[in-house]
C-alpha cells in the first residue's frame, strides 16, 4: 500500500470505530465495546507504522507528501481541499498519539468496566483520537481548524462524561468556551495568513511566506500571535490555563490521554508545524517562549501546594508543556518534540497509576486523606516511582534527556535566552519537589483506612460517596466508582498498559542520546531542515554542565521532598506559616479564576441581564414597540364599528388597505 493509503487509514479506523460504537450502543454487551474501540486504535497505530516504513523508503527531499480526497470548499478567494500532509513531523505525532491511545484504551477496558456509559465512553474516546489525528495530519489551515475544534468538542464530551455531576458539566463548559476562544484565534490567524499569501494549503503558505513577509512584518506578527492564542488555549498556558485543572472531573483515562499525553500538546505541534512563519515573526515567537517560561514556573508553584492528587499531575502537565512551548517557540524543535514524546509516556503512566490509587480510595482524590499505599499496591507504587523519576529528570530516565535537550538548545543560543535556561532549571527543582511530595504523601507514612482495608484483601467502599468537588451525593449506579470497580494493578489489561508505559518512560530517551544517537533529530530533518536555527552549534561543554545541573537539581528536589514529608513530618506546616503570603498566592492558584471572573465572566453576565431586564423592556418593548402599537390601537378604536372583533376581517382590511396604497402609488407613477 502506498504512503497516502496508509495515512488515510490512520484516520479511517478511529472514525469507523466511533461510528460503529455509536450506532451499536444498544447491542454491544460486556467488554465488546472496549475490544472494538481498542482494536480500532491499534489498527490506526499499525497503519501509522506502515506509513512510517513507506515514508522512510523515500529520499529525504520527498518526505513531505500531500494527498487530497475531495474539494471541500472553493470560493472566490479560497481553495480548500480535503487534504492531509504527511511528513516526519505529522507522522511522529500520529505514532505518539495512536500508540499512547492504544495503551490508554486498553487500560480503559477494565477501568471503565463498571460504568453505565461504557459504550459511550469508547465511542467518545475513538472520536477524540480521530479528531486528534485529523489535527496533526491536516494539510491546510481550514482542516487544521477543523481538527482543532473537534478535539475541543471531544474533550468537552469526555470532561462532562459523568454529566450528572454539576461539577463535571461546569468544568466541561469552561473548557469548551476557553477552547472556542482558542479556535477564534486560529480562525483569525488563518485569515491573516490567507490574506497575506492567498493560500490555505500549508506547504504553499510556507513556500510563499518568505516572499510575502519580511522579518517581523506586523501582519505576520499579528497572525502568529493569533495562532498563539489558539496554542495557549489548547495547551493550557497562562492565562488560558484555568480549564485544565477543572478538566480533571473527567474519568482518569481521559486525563491521561487528552489532558496529559495528546490534546494539550497540540499547541506545541501547531508552533512546530507553522515554524516557517513563526521564524519570520520573531516577536511572536519570543512572546511564546516567555509565555511558556512563565507557565512552567507558575504551574510548578501551584503544584507544590495543591492537595488533589490528579490536580498535582495536571499542574505538572501545564508546567511540562510550558517547557515544550518555550522550546518550539525558541526554535528548538527536535528537543521540544522529544519532550512531547517522553512526557506522553511518563505522564500517561502517572495518571494511570493515579487511577489505581483513586480506585483504592473509592473516588477520593485528596492527598490529605491518603497515605501508606506503598506495601499494598507495589506495582502502582513502582509506576509512580518510574514516572516520578522520569518527570523529575533523573538519569537515565527518559525525561532527563528530553528536558536537558530543551535547555541545552536554549542555552546554546545565548543572549536573553539565558533567562529561559535558568527558569527551566528552577522549574526542574520544583518539579522534583512536587512530584515526590505527591508520592511520599500517597504511598509513605501511616497507612490510611483505605490502605488498611486493601491490606486485608478488600477494596474500600464508602458508606455513601460524595462528590469531592461540591459535596453532593454521587449517583454511583450511573458511573464510577460503582460497586464493581477495580484497582489498576489487579486487572491484567490495566497492568499491561502501565507496564508498557513504564518501560517506555524508562528507556524512551535512547532515541536521542547526546553524542550517541540522534535518531529523532535526523528523522525530523525533512520538516525542519529549512529552519534558520537548524543545527545551531551544539556546545558540548554546556551540555555536560547542563546534565550535571539537571541531575543534581532533580536529586536535590527529591531529597528536599523527603526531608519535608518523610523525615520530619510537620515541616510543611512550618513552611506554610513562615511563608504565609506566597502560600496563599499559590494555593489560590495565583487568583487566575477570580481575575477572569471579575474581568470577563461577570461583566458579560451583567450585560446580558441588563439587556434582558432593562433594555428589552424599556427601549425595545417600550419606546420602539409600544408607541406604534398604541397608535394603531387608538386608530383601530376609531374604526371599531368596522371591526367585527374578528381577526380575519381585521387582517383582510389590512390587505385591502395595502392594495389600495399600491394602486394609488402606481397611478401616481
Amino acid at each position, binding site marked *: 500500500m502506498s504512503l497516502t493509503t496508509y495515512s488515510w487509514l490512520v484516520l479511517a479506523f478511529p472514525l469507523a470505530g466511533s461510528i460503529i460504537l455509536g450506532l451499536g450502543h444498544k447491542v454491544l454487551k460486556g467488554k465488546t465495546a472496549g475490544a472494538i474501540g481498542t482494536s480500532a486504535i491499534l489498527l490506526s497505530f499499525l497503519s501509522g507504522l506502515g506509513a512510517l516504513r513507506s515514508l522512510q523508503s523515500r529520499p529525504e527531499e520527498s518526505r513531505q507528501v500531500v494527498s487530497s480526497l475531495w*474539494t*471541500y*470548499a*472553493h*470560493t*472566490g*478567494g*479560497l481553495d480548500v481541499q480535503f487534504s492531509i500532509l504527511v511528513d516526519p513531523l505529522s507522522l511522529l505525532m500520529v505514532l505518539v498519539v495512536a500508540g499512547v491511545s492504544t495503551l490508554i484504551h486498553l487500560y480503559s477496558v477494565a477501568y471503565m468496566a463498571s460504568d453505565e456509559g461504557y459504550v459511550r465512553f469508547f465511542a467518545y474516546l475513538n472520536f477524540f483520537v480521530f479528531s486528534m489525528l485529523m489535527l496533526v495530519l491536516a494539510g491546510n489551515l481550514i482542516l487544521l*481548524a*477543523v481538527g*482543532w*475544534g473537534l478535539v475541543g468538542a471531544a474533550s*468537552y464530551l469526555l470532561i*462532562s462524561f459523568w*454529566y*450528572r455531576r*454539576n461539577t463535571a*458539566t461546569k468544568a*466541561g*463548559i469552561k473548557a*469548551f*468556551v476557553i477552547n*472556542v476562544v482558542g*479556535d*477564534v484565534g486560529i480562525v*483569525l490567524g488563518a*485569515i491573516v495568513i*490567507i*490574506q*497575506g*499569501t*492567498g493560500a490555505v494549503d500549508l506547504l504553499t503558505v510556507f513556500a*510563499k511566506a518568505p516572499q*510575502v513577509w519580511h522579518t517581523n512584518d506586523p501582519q505576520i506578527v499579528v497572525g502568529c500571535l493569533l495562532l498563539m492564542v489558539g496554542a495557549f488555549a489548547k495547551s493550557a498556558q497562562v492565562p488560558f490555563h484555568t480549564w485544565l485543572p477543572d478538566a480533571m472531573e473527567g474519568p482518569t483515562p481521559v486525563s491521561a490521554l487528552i489532558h496529559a499525553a495528546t490534546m494539550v500538546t497540540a499547541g506545541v505541534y501547531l508552533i512546530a508545524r507553522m515554524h516557517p512563519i513563526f521564524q519570520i515573526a520573531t516577536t511572536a515567537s519570543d512572546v511564546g517562549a516567555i509565555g511558556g517560561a512563565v507557565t512552567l514556573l507558575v504551574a510548578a508553584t501551584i503544584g507544590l501546594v495543591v492537595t488533589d492528587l490528579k490536580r498535582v499531575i495536571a499542574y505538572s502537565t501545564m508546567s511540562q508543556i510550558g517547557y515544550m512551548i518555550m522550546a518550539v517557540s525558541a526554535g528548538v524543535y527536535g528537543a521540544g518534540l522529544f519532550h512531547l514524546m517522553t512526557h506522553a509516556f511518563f505522564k500517561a503512566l502517572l495518571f494511570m497509576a493515579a487511577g489505581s490509587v483513586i480506585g483504592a480510595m473509592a473516588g477520593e482524590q485528596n492527598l490529605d486523606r491518603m497515605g501508606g499505599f506503598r506495601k499494598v499496591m507495589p506495582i502502582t507504587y513502582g509506576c509512580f516511582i518510574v514516572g516520578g523519576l522520569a518527570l523529575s529528570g533523573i538519569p537515565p530516565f527518559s525525561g532527563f534527556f528530553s528536558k536537558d535537550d530543551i535547555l541545552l538548545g536554549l542555552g546554546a543560543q545565548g543572549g536573553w535566552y539565558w533567562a529561559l535556561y535558568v527558569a527551566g532549571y528552577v522549574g526542574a527543582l520544583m518539579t522534583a519537589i512536587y512530584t515526590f511530595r505527591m508520592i511520599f504523601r500517597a504511598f509513605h507514612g501511616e497507612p490510611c483506612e483505605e490502605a488498611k482495608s486493601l491490606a486485608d484483601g478488600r477494596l474500600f467502599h464508602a458508606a455513601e460517596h460524595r462528590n469531592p468537588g461540591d459535596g*453532593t451525593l454521587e*449517583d454511583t449506579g450511573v458511573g464510577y466508582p460503582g460497586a464493581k470497580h477495580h484497582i489498576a494493578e489487579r486487572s491484567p489489561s490495566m497492568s499491561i498498559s502501565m507496564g508498557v508505559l513504564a518501560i517506555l518512560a524508562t528507556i524512551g530517551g535512547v532515541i536521542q542520546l547526546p553524542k550517541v544517537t540522534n535518531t529523532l533529530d535526523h528523522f525530523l530533518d525533512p520538516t525542519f531542515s529549512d529552519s534558520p536555527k537548524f543545527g545551531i552549534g551544539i556546545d558540548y561543554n554546556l551540555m555536560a554542565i547542563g546534565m550535571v545541573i539537571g541531575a543534581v537539581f532533580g536529586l536535590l528536589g527529591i531529597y528536599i521532598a523527603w526531608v519535608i514529608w518523610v523525615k520530619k513530618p510537620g515541616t510543611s506546616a512550618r513552611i506554610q506559616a513562615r511563608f504565609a503570603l506566597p502560600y496563599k498566592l499559590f494555593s489560590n492558584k495565583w487568583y487566575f479564576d477570580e481575575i477572569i471572573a471579575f474581568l470577563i465572566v461577570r461583566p*458579560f*453576565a451583567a450585560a*446580558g*441581564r441588563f*439587556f*434582558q431586564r432593562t433594555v428589552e423592556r424599556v*427601549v*425595545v418593548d417600550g419606546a*420602539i*414597540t409600544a408607541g*406604534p*402599537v398604541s397608535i*394603531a390601537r387608538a386608530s383601530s378604536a376609531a374604526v371599531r364599528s368596522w371591526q367585527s372583533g374578528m*381577526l*380575519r376581517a381585521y*387582517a383582510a382590511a*389590512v*390587505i385591502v388597505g*395595502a392594495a389600495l*396604497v399600491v394602486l394609488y*402609488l*402606481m397611478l*401616481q*407613477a
Partner: protein
Amino acid sequence: MELTLLLFLPLATGLLGGILGNRLVKPVAVLGGLGTLGVAVGLALNYDTALGGSQFTVDKLWVKPLGIHWALTIDGLNLALVVLTAFVYASVVVACALREQESPRLFYFHLGLGASAVLGAFLAQDLILFVLFFDLMLVPFYFLVGQWGTGDRVAATTKMVIYTLAGSLLMLAAAVATGALAASHHGRHLDFLISNLERLPLGKGTQQWIFLCFAAAFLVKMPAVPLHGWLKDAYKSMPLPVLALFSGVLSKVAAYGFLKLALPLFPDAAASFQDLLLAIGVISILYGSALAFTTNDARLVVGYSSIAQLGFILLGIFSLTSDGAQGALLQMVNHGVVTVALVMIVGVLASRAKGSEDLGSMGGIAMGAPVLAVVFLIAAFANLAMPASANFIGEFLILKGVFDSVTVVAVIACLGVAMAAVYMLRAYIRAMHGPDTNGVEQRDLSIREALPILPAIALILALALSPQPLLKRSEGPATAAVIPAAKAANIDPIQTATTAQAKR
C-alpha cells in the same frame, strides 16, 4: 413551467386538502410537501451548473400598462434557498401531520399558502412580484398565530402586523418609486423586471432613501436589533412546526432580498450605508447572543440565537466581498436546516418536562434518551458553528470577507462566536445534563418525533462533509451581486494572492 408548478404546489395541495375534507387533508398535505421537495430537488439536479446563470425561466408581461412581469427563474443565488424552503416545508408538514390540529383544513391551507409565498419571493425576478410575495408571506402567519397560537396571541399578532406592515409599506413605496424613477430618469417605459432595473441606475441621492426603505423592511423581517420587538411574542405563541417554517425560511427571504435587490439596484447607497448595516449586524450578534444566554426559555434561546446568526449573515453581505456573500448564502441554508432541528427538539424536550419549555424545569434528560442527546448535540454544535460543520465554513467565509473589508468589525464579531458556544451549551446542559431534580420523563425519541428531525440532522452531516456543492453554484452570482456595491465602496470583492501582494 416547472417553476410555476413548484410555486403553486404547496398552495394547491393545501386547497385540495381543504376541499376533500378532514379525513384526506393530512395525506394530501404530506404528499404536497414531499412533492414540492421532489420537484425542487429535481430542479436542482437538472440545473446545469457548468452553464450557470438563470435557468427554467418564465417571463410573461403580466400587467402590461405597469410593466409588471410574471417572471420566475432559478439561478445560483436562489437555488439552494428554494430547495431549503421545500425541505423545511416538507419537514414541517410531516411534523404537523403527526399531531392534531383544530380545523385542520384551514391550517394546512395557510401553511401551504405560506410556503408558496416564500417560494414565490425566492423565485421572483420582478420587483413588484417580489414585493407582492413578500407581503403575502405574512398573511397566513397572522392567521396561524391568531387562530392556532398559544399564550398572548393578540399581542403577538398586533406587534407582528404593525412591525411588518410598516416595513412592507415602505418597501412597496420604494419598489414603485424604483421603477417609476428609473423609467422617467432614462426616458423609458415602466418596467419592473429586476435585470432591466439593474441596467438603469438611479441617482445617488434617490438611491439612498429607497435603499433605506428596503433595508427597513428586510431588517424587521430578519429581525435585526433594534427592530426585533415583535419576535418574542410571535415566537412564544406560534405552534412549534409553524415556528420551524417561519424561523427557518422567512428570515432568509429578507437576507436574500439584500443580496438580490438592495446591493445590485442601489450600489452607491449600499456602499454609503455599509458601516451602518455592519454596525446593525454586529449589534444583533452581540445583543442577540446576550439575550440567548440569559433567557430560560428554550424556544427563545433558538429565537435570540437566530437574531445573532442573521447578524452574521448581514455582516457577510455587507462586507461587500465575494467570500462574505457566499458565506452568507451558505449560512442561510445552514441556519434554516439547524433551526428546523432545534425547534422540533424544543418540542420534544417540552414533552419530557410536563409540557414546560422552561430550561429550569428540565435537566438530566440525556440519561434515558441517548439518541435524543446525540441529535440535540449535533444540532447544537452546528448552531454554534463548530469547526467541521458547514456552519463553520459559512461563518469562516463571512469573517474572512468582513476581515478583508472592515477588519475591526470582524474582530468584534468574533465575540459572538464565543458567546454562541456559551448559550448553546448552556441550553444543552440545562436540558440534558445535570442531576434529574425535576422528575423529567426519560424517554428517547419515538419514531413519530424522529421523523421530522432526522432528515435535518442527516442534512447537517452531509453539508458538513462537503459544503462545496452549494458553494460551487453560488460563486458566480454571489460575486456578481456584490461587485457594483464593492466598486462604489472601493473594496476589492475578491481577495486573491495577487491582489493581496499588489496591495502591499
